[in-house]
């Protein structure tokens, strides 16, 4: 039964990675289902609309950043050290710009869609303020967290390529919702 052994091999290769991603998602779900977060969804119409875009773009921006750093290390273009490096600096700046820029766009877009449909929405400043702040906070943690993890795993002899996907999904889910909540609280107080 060769096929059965092959199925089992693919299963074993992937189940650990999916398990890590499941744990991150469950934590994020627990935050979303909490009383405080549900109250926020009711107080700021538009947050549920932007939630999938906000969470999904984390994976795209920082997954690409992690993959770039990992290839850079393999090609010897950058060194696994926290010191001034023009390539590294450019990659970090670009990730901040992409991550924060798309967050702000998502805030505008969800407000615009609700306006166009004539539905109730939170104020533009509130939605954009929330996505901007949450975007800045997730960018800082994901960019520096990924650098520490990718450099660390590279130096201890692991291939970072196998780790980036699941790590980005997990960190993105966990910090995405936590910082979304932090941003909601701050914007609720300030605006």
């Amino acid at each position: 039964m060769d096929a059965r052994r092959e199925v089992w091999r693919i299963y074993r290769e992937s189940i650990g990675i999916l398990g890590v991603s499941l744990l991150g998602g469950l934590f994020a779900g627990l935050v979303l289902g909490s009383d405080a977060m549900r109250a926020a969804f009711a107080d700021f119409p538009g947050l549920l609309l932007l939630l999938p875009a906000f969470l999904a773009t984390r994976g795209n921006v920082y997954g690409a950043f992690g993959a770039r750093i990992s290839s850079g290390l393999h090609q010897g273009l950058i060194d696994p050290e926290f010191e001034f490096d023009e390539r590294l600096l450019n990659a970090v700046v670009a990730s901040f710009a992409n991550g924060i820029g798309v967050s702000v766009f998502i805030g505008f877009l969800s407000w615009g869609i609700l306006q166009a449909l004539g539905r109730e929405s939170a104020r533009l400043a509130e939605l954009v303020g929330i996505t901007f702040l949450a975007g800045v906070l997730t960018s800082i943690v994901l960019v520096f967290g990924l650098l520490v993890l990718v450099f660390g795993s590279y130096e201890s002899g692991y291939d970072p390529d196998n780790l980036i996907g699941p790590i980005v999904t997990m960190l993105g889910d966990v910090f995405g919702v936590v910082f979304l909540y932090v941003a909601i609280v701050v914007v609720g107080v300030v605006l």
Partner: protein
Amino acid sequence: MTDDLGTWRFRTIIVTMFPILIALSVLEMGSGYVLESLEATYLDNPTLLILVPVMIGMGGNLGAILSSRLSTRLHLGTLEFSPRDEQLWTSIAAIMLLAATVFGALGVAAWVLGRVIAEPMALVDLLVISVGSGMLLACLAVILSVAATYVSYQQGLDPDDTTIPVVTNVCDILGVVVLSAVAIAVL
């Protein structure tokens, strides 16, 4: 000095990626719209909200696993687009088993966590919703992966650059839509 940075220039990275991110955000609004329209259902059943992040990410994970296997075989020239391709069915069987494990665990875990934060939904309902929408999503991920690999093969595109990002993101978008459809049917 900046000339030898090539693809590492921040402007180049932004110009390549930002339009894609904008397009994805617009598409993701489709699944956001489903969430927003069913706001009452989700806010009344916090246990359902626990499922949402996993449903957003897991379809893409499953699609990525299958797509990268298909892509590797396409590069090696061993992939046949035929129902008799045994390796294709082996990969699909593994994906389905992975989906059954993950979404089964998700249903049980969401039930346990749901008891912590709110009045729980019935375990049976939650399992039917989680496993039902999960397996449906896995089927969609399989169909999309095979179709996208076939299209990039016919068009002569490198599937590593095309199918994997497309499949991952489309599955992410479909996750919430499938979850909502199944939840409404069950509740």
